[in-house]
């Protein structure tokens, strides 16, 4: 069993519900516990509004908990964000560098990967043109091609497993599968049970910002389905 890289204990996160000084707060996460070990692939499930994306941003270090404790080993955590920092008047090349820097890569690392990004994105000569001239599909292809280059210690993925047209969806899903199969530590949030079953060893189920169950994939899914099929009376 790998060493613990991130551990959350009774973590809660509150957001401002209105843009004013006396605005009330609401708790997007109320009480979440989680243990992530090196090399583990953890799936996070739960219904809409359960707090899954908020949890990923806590693990990424973007959100600081308002209560509870988070312990992390000295590891880099990166949320796989598409089109981060993209500027429409810049070329695909410049946007790839900018987005790569935002995602935590050093400039020399991105520049070394530019040929791979250009090839993977299938943009050809458009790679040197402003992305304002791109179609939505071309934009997504570039965005995914940059994001997939990032190699943090802990990779955090929020539902962006396949983008673009059918052919590129297959290609991007395969690239991500390959990345997840390389022994990286991964946290994957998805509504797609098949994806979680295929790619994760363990599962955390959260509802209304609270941990319901964390454990082996089959055990947690069995409990999840049991509640979905036999909901408790209101």
């Amino acid at each position, binding site marked *: 069993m790998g060493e613990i890289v991130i551990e959350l204990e009774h973590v809660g*996160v*509150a*957001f*401002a*519900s*209105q*843009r004013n*000084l006396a*605005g009330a707060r609401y708790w997007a996460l109320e009480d979440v516990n989680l243990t992530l070990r090196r090399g583990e692939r953890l799936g996070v499930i739960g219904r809409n509004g359960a707090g899954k994306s908020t949890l990923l*941003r806590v693990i*990424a*270090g*973007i*959100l*600081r908990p308002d209560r509870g404790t988070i312990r992390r080993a000295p590891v880099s*955590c990166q*949320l796989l*964000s598409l089109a*981060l*920092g993209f*500027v*429409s*008047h*810049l070329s695909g090349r*410049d946007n790839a*560098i*900018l987005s790569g*820097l*935002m*995602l*935590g*890569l*050093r*400039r020399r690392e991105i520049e070394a990967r530019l040929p791979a990004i250009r090839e993977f994105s299938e943009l050809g000569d458009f790679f040197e043109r*402003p992305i304002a001239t791109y179609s939505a599909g071309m934009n997504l292809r570039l965005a995914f091609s940059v994001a997939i280059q990032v190699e943090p210690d802990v990779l955090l993925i929020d539902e962006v497993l396949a983008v673009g047209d059918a052919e590129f969806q297959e290609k991007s899903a395969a690239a991500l599968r390959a990345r997840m199969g390389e022994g990286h530590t991964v946290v994957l949030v998805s509504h797609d049970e098949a994806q979680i079953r295929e790619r994760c060893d363990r599962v955390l189920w959260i509802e209304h910002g609270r941990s319901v169950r964390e454990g082996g994939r089959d055990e947690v899914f069995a409990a999840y389905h049991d509640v979905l099929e036999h909901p408790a009376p209101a």
Partner: protein
Amino acid sequence: MRRHLIELVLFSTYAELRAEAARSYLGLIWWVLEPAMMMGAFWLVFDVILKTGGPDYLPFLLIGMTLWQWMKSCITHGGYAIWSNLTMVRQVNLPPIVFPLVAMLSDTVKFALIFLLLVGILWAMGYPPNGSYWALIPLFAAIFVAAAGAGFIVAAIVPLVPDLRFVIEQVLTVVMFLSGVVFPLGQVTGLLKTFMQFNPVAVVMDDARRILMHDQLPNWIGFWKVCVIAIVLCAAGALLIRALAPRYPKLAS
């Protein structure tokens, strides 16, 4: 980590300048044309119409407006930068001070171009480059640190109180008129004169004109006071952003 942030700030500055140049038909020309039009308007009102200027009024005004526009843009653009990048703040774990720094550096690059043009204009008007020009380096460094400090403080607060944006512009206009940017403060007396001696903007305006127009070095006592104020402002602004950083990604959009 630190080197990565430096690379990010420098490339983002390049990206912002490049994108800004591409957004309009005249591109880079606007960086010079826009301040030139504003200087022209002030010259028309204060010198041609109101006749409040004197023989040296035009170089006096050009120096004042060039430096003021730089300071003001650092404070406003830098000051609104975290607020206008809140979407990004919610997506990525970066120190928020990166955003105002990028805005201030891109304004500084634009200032450098305008300043070169100013030197040429001054030369043509009979104020050639002189031996005191070296003192512009510490003077500009102090101005940047002071403006960055004021910009950081505004940048820290605006995401929490966006209404502050409506006040900042008006406050800066008052500061401009009380700092000898547009007209000399020689005739000011009494309490206001004492206040002026502690107004860092008035001090740097005076120092810049001594160097550029009269081949004289700055008033060093006043300059060191400005340096102390600049360092205190900058440290306070950076610490405030750091202290408030956990709140920004949790703000309502």
